[in-house]
């Protein structure tokens, strides 16, 4: 990857490592799933806050991925229980 790339607005890349954009906490190589190094919380969507998320159905989940260093919310995913995390990775540039 080029020196200026990042993974997202919340996950930066520094010397090939994914890092929290807010505090610089290391989240592993940018060529590997950074979510493996984040705190993960999974809650029913209905409890995510506000009435509009309550569809009256269980089993629909909202996943949060937090920075272990500063607790910034780095990413969210909607999911059903057991579905794998979505991985976003940058390729190594040869």
């Amino acid at each position: 990857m080029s020196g200026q790339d990042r993974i997202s607005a919340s996950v930066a890349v520094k010397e090939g490592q994914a890092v929290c954009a807010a505090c610089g906490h290391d989240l592993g190589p940018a060529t590997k799933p950074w979510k493996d190094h984040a705190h993960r919380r999974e809650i029913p969507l209905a409890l995510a806050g506000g009435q509009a998320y309550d569809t009256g159905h269980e089993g629909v989940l909202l996943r949060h991925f937090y920075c272990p260093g500063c607790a910034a919310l780095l990413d969210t995913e909607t999911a059903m229980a057991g579905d794998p995390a979505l991985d976003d990775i940058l390729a190594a540039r040869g």
Partner: protein
Amino acid sequence: MDPMTFSIIRHRLFRIVDEAVITLKHVSGSAITNEGHDLMVSLYRADGTLLMGGVGFLHHLTSAAEACKSIIRRFEGDIHEGDIFLLNDPYTAALHTSDIYLVSPIHHEGRLVAWSACFVHVYDIGAVNPGGFAPQAPDIYTEGFSSPGIRLVAGGEMRQDVLDTILNMVRSPEMVTLDLRSMIACNNVARDRMQSLMTKYGAKEVDGACAELVNQSEDLFRARLRELPDGQWQSRQYLDVNGDTARVNLTMTKKDDRLIFDFSGSDPQSPYSINCTKWASLGGLFAPLFPLLCYDITWNEGVLRPVEMIAPEGSIVNCTRPAPVSVATVGAIQSVNNAACSTIGKMLGASEKYRNQSTAVWHANHFAIFKFGRNQKGGDSIGILTETFAGAGGARSFADGVEIGGEIPNPISRMANVETVEAAFPVRYLFRRRAPDSGGPGEYRGGTGGELALVPHKAPDGGINYVISGKGSRHPMSEGLAGGYPGAPNSYVWVKAPEDGANTPVTAAGGLDAISGTQERVSWGVYPLMGRDALYVRWNGGGGHGDPIVRDPEAVRRDVAAGLVTLQSAGDIYGVALRDGAVDETETMAKRKSIRSARLQQEASE
């Protein structure tokens, strides 16, 4: 070719498409075309490849190219000046049977030089359910009239026997006639203008400019791809039909100047009509790609060349005949739209140069509610609730999404006036407004969707019925970016009036809970709207961008004051405390600190 002539020809092609769209709208009388802009007009080269993609629903640009190509194969040696062909078979090229393509060869001095193609969602196609979306169809055979290619106009003359055969199979044939005639007029204008362009500049010169235009688009798109980081981005969309969940999984890989969309791992084709064919999936992924990656590049065959799609046969994104597909445009095709919008948004967000062009997913849960029945004038009406086209903008990396801001796959989508609907149907709106908490929370909030309630009004039969279909209302689909939440899901509620007494008067401030009666969620099938019952609909907002607890508290205060965010969400999600209509800064800091420490107490990912 000298650059001035090239530029003039390029702009003339744009204008030809524009003028053809105007013609289509002037002749058509249906709300879905005129108000919802559920239409498309484009120009194609002599071999059927895309030359100039027009506006309207962009997932049609590549499918109509396939329609032109299949007409060329089927009618080889028998294509004449002034012919117009009809094609609406989804297993040949169309998205679903009710989106009819009319494709016209364009001749100059006796030689086939180009094609024009357009579509509208026709008033009815004779499927098991009125309006074309058929939740009760078990297969393609019950989804109405379907042709892999038939000559509707021969040498400028309507083939009346063919037209009569089609009209014999549809409800409201007079409205379907108008739809077909609007498309014929549209193609006639496109053909006339293309012919005069060729007369002025020479057919060879124009075709040379077209070839150059295609190559230019390819070069520009490949150059843009090379500027973007190499990597792999994933997205997943859920569809619900009566509790059955289906998944569309996407891994988008960008390598140098190539882009691969891989839908491996998506669920097998469904028994329900939410499936789509491979041509539809291809159109589905290009719909967000054109405006997000090629906003300054002419939409043509050149943009297609660097892109590859992998869609497993027999899956929900590449179903096999005779799987039903009539709900595809608000089913799997839109899931493909959304998944591609999400991965493209992530890729743009990873780029130093293009990060400000990344967007969370817009209005992801397009729905189809077709009202049908006897109207207040004694005639029959069929029509979609065009609010589904009103949409909601996804948040950007620097700004909130636009409230009720449209949708990515159709840059000109919009909704009908309340009065237009009330004039055509025996119904009254109790309210229509922006829906609180529908926009996905984030540092930048997703644009809100809307909500509305309808009741019967002066209906000769006591009310009407409606067909509802789509992807259900269980799952949020407008995914957020970089920590932004998804937009809230859709909601469809049948409010059954109490046995005794009148309904509570409804004010705009009251919303769903101000309508008295028992509430039943609906999302798939045919339902009545009779007597004093009401139908409540909320459509989703756009996805948010960034962590909600870093949103400017003053922006949250404004949202609450405007009724776009509730007090509860301001506190629970944004960590903002309001007192007497103002931000309580001390309390807000404490709230946000406590949200942060609660986060760190969660278990680490294994």
